[in-house]
């Protein structure tokens, strides 16, 4: 028995995943779906296809594939599972009793079922082709489209019947209606307020320029907006990270004292010198 030695798989730019996976064996060269179709039709011996090599080649091809082509994976799994079923049935001899049971039609024969489905599919595929020819032969039928005037009439439009209105009458009517209708209130405007870290950091910096030490709770004593409080706290942490300030708190919920870093450094140096 000749066994396929070289198996190669590559992905083509086909829209249908079954056709996109291109398989090359010693005995076969074409899309994955065609391989299955040929084996199902017994035009290719399933025993000559080494499924292990096929899977190996597939994994190799997958490694080089770009992301987002997952359908290729599912179609491969689907086709290979059918190949494995067919091959296992070809490899294993069938017991005569089993055949007898199948003959009694108590159990459906998977091979027969597959064949039946294949016939059914082909029947519709061919019917589809025939319909395609019908379509391209270009003999469509046309029905009367509703006339524009009729459609407009149904929509409530009325043809011009009386004499045209005097423009002055229209102008008068317009002036009266303007007086009757109250002016529309200006549309409500929602402006999102943005509080930036920089803004709040500047507030802390300017406070520190006025006093050698500040207490955060005092700085925010007249602030009721939680977001402002939170952003100020974050700004303070940023300043601390940037080694601009030193933060001290003796106990939870206690006053948060903030001192400028340079001053503290100097004071440390001073005390070291002293």
């Amino acid at each position: 028995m000749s066994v396929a030695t070289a198996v190669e798989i590559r992905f083509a730019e086909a829209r249908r995943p079954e056709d996109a996976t291109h398989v090359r064996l010693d005995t076969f060269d074409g899309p994955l779906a065609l391989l299955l179709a040929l084996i199902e039709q017994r035009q290719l011996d399933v025993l000559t296809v080494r499924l292990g090599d096929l899977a190996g080649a597939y994994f190799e091809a997958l490694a080089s594939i770009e992301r987002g082509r997952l359908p290729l994976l599912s179609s491969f799994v689907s086709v290979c599972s059918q190949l494995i079923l067919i091959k296992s049935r070809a490899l294993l001899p069938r017991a005569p009793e089993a055949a007898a049971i199948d003959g009694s039609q108590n159990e459906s024969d998977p091979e027969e079922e597959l064949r039946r489905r294949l016939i059914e599919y082909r029947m519709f595929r061919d019917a589809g082709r025939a319909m395609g020819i019908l379509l391209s032969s270009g003999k469509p039928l046309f029905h009367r489209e509703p006339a524009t005037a009729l459609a407009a009439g149904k929509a409530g439009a009325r043809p011009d019947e009386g004499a045209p209105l005097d423009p002055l009458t229209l102008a008068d009517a317009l002036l009266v209606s303007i007086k009757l209708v109250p002016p529309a209130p200006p549309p409500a405007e929602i402006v999102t307020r943005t509080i930036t870290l920089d803004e709040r950091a500047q507030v802390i910096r300017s406070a520190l320029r006025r006093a050698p030490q500040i207490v955060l709770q005092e700085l925010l004593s007249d602030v009721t907006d939680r977001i402002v409080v939170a952003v100020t706290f974050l700004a303070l942490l940023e300043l601390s990270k940037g080694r601009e300030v030193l933060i001290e708190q003796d106990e939870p919920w206690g006053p948060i004292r903030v001192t400028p870093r340079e001053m503290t450094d100097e004071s440390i140096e001073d005390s070291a010198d002293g």
Partner: protein
Amino acid sequence: MDDVVAIPVVPDDVAQAPGSLTVAQLEALLFVAERPLKRREIAALAGVSREEVDALLGDLEVALGERGLRLVAAGDEVQLVTAPDAGSLIARYTGVEGAKLSPAALETLAIVAYRQPVTRGMIERIRGVDSDYVLRTLLHRRLVVEQGRADTPGRPILFGTGFDFLERFGLTSLDDLPPLDAEAAERLVE
């Protein structure tokens, strides 16, 4: 019974007075109607029975013969359309260019046309691949229409073909579809 003066009994689906309808009148009505008409609707309008409408429609179909118009019937509805041979001429007039269909779309459409009403599950069982997208495309192009829901668990949508399908393919009824060739398919598989 003949000598008894009976008060005319009007069937539910027929208008008050029993009327009459000629082939010419029926033709005129269908000519003016810009939508498919139900046989029941015609019967009610003319005050005649459904059977009479059916018979007159048959007569009209014969009378149209080789003329430029054809009678299209889908389900209970009928419509007057242009003859297939005039198709390319009218297409040039309206400027409507029929879009082409992919093999997958044609295959799916064939299943719907021959097996209707079908569910998406039934289509996918035959094709063996997910058919959601292709079915939605056909629905969008109105080649396939929803025909209600199946009485099975999940109440899946039933699909079929409508007037647009017949018109696009130049068919006057579903009976005009080429017969399914099961034997040829069988020979191919053997």
